[in-house]
């Protein structure tokens, strides 16, 4: 079931790639605004880098939520999926596909933004880029999972575009805190294993609760 759905998602995405590229482009453009607004000096950008990149990643994930269940809800395929398998597994496979299509590209693009934000400034052999990528690998699935809950709750609501942001942003705060501070700790040559572990713990909690909650919400939205 999950594999069949995943294949379909990837096929649809391949033919609708522009919809997925826009959040990524947004990710890059937002980050590139900061040198203009604050200062192009490397030490300043470096200090801002973890926060700016993480906030941009979070906003890009929010933007991409529009692509999540919406078209399946509108063309009726969501209810067909719910007839043929359990709501939780529908949610789980959609979340997996969505992360592969939005979260993963963000992770892959993040080194580029690290360069733009001078993340390795002043370090000869620095692996801050890896730390940044690692936090995004652990953090973006959690954002996807929480976003899925928000999106499935607002499918049948009238003003859904911005509504989902309002519901979800407070829930994103813990991920943002630990994601950005892991990178900051690495920049300050401090240990960051604890922060990474907590990001991982958030992911586990979200995996346990979010697909179930999202599945229940899908049933309600379709009903």
């Amino acid at each position, binding site marked *: 079931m999950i594999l069949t759905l995943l294949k379909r998602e990837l096929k649809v995405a391949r033919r609708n790639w522009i919809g997925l590229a826009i959040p990524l482009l947004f990710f890059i453009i937002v980050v590139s605004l900061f040198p203009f607004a604050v200062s192009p000096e490397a030490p300043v950008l470096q200090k801002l880098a973890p926060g700016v990149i993480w906030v941009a990643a979070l906003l890009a994930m929010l933007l991409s939520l529009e692509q999540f269940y919406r078209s399946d809800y509108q063309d009726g395929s969501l209810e067909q999926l719910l007839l043929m398998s359990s709501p939780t597994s529908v949610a789980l496979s959609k979340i997996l596909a969505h992360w592969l299509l939005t979260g993963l590209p963000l992770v892959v693009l993040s080194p580029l933004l690290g360069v733009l934000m001078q993340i390795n400034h002043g370090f000869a052999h620095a692996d801050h880029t890896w730390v940044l990528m690692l936090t995004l690998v652990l953090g973006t699935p959690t954002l996807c999972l929480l976003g899925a809950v928000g999106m499935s709750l607002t499918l049948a609501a009238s003003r859904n575009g911005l509504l989902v942001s*309002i*519901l979800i942003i*407070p829930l994103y705060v*813990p991920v943002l805190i630990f994601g950005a*501070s892991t990178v900051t700790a690495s920049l300050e040559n401090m240990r960051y294993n604890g922060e990474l572990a907590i990001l991982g713990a958030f992911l586990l*909690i979200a995996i346990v609760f979010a697909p179930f*909650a999202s599945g229940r919400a899908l049933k309600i*939205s379709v009903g």
Partner: protein
Amino acid sequence: MAKAWRWFHQLGSPKYLFQKTGQWLPWVWAATLILLAVGLYYSLWASPIEVRQGQGHTVRIMYVHVPAAALSMIAYIAMAIAATVGLVWKMKMAFAVVRSIAPVGAAMTFLALFTGSVWGKPTWGTWWEWDARMTSELLLLFLYLGYIALHASFSDRSKADKAGAILAIVGVINIPIIYFSVKWWNTLHQGYSVTEKGALDPAFQTPLFLMLGAIYLLFAALVLMRLRAEIILRNQKSRWVKEWASGSEVKS
């Protein structure tokens, strides 16, 4: 046990609930007003000013701030419990309770933030400090507003109720996570902490406890009033509501 269950089921009947809350409400209001009068007398006149930290009269803000902050959290938990009851036992009146608590809880959260800010200005010299508690309180306000916005965005009330209930439950799972994260973040940045070390001077305790009781009762009274309005709104078409609206009493 069987009796408790029957009572629980009876509460699921809108008419019964409307009748019962109608009987309770005058008593709750009476108790609220008495306790509020005594509490305000103690907190505004009959209690000493703070001298140790030089807060003077501003310490009196605490008598509103602390109860409001305590209630803001408890109200959200109550919402989540009612939401669970509604989803698990399919009890529609529980959703009415969730919807009734939300605005009152949001108002309490706002009150806590506002009084905190007003208290912060003379104490710390700033209207806003990214203190762990105030930040959590701000996020809690967003959670309340999110619920209210979500509920208002459906044309179908039963969908609004169920979607809102799921959001309330997801929110309540997140509250400890948010609180823990914000606290951790706060110590990292060595911000202020308002946490008072040591026991509260007994002179401050009496008015604080009185006000805690008074604000709890005020909350209960407001929620009951909203709940009654919700019951009427949700049962406009039933005969007993029409009879009630035309002025006759609700009989069982």
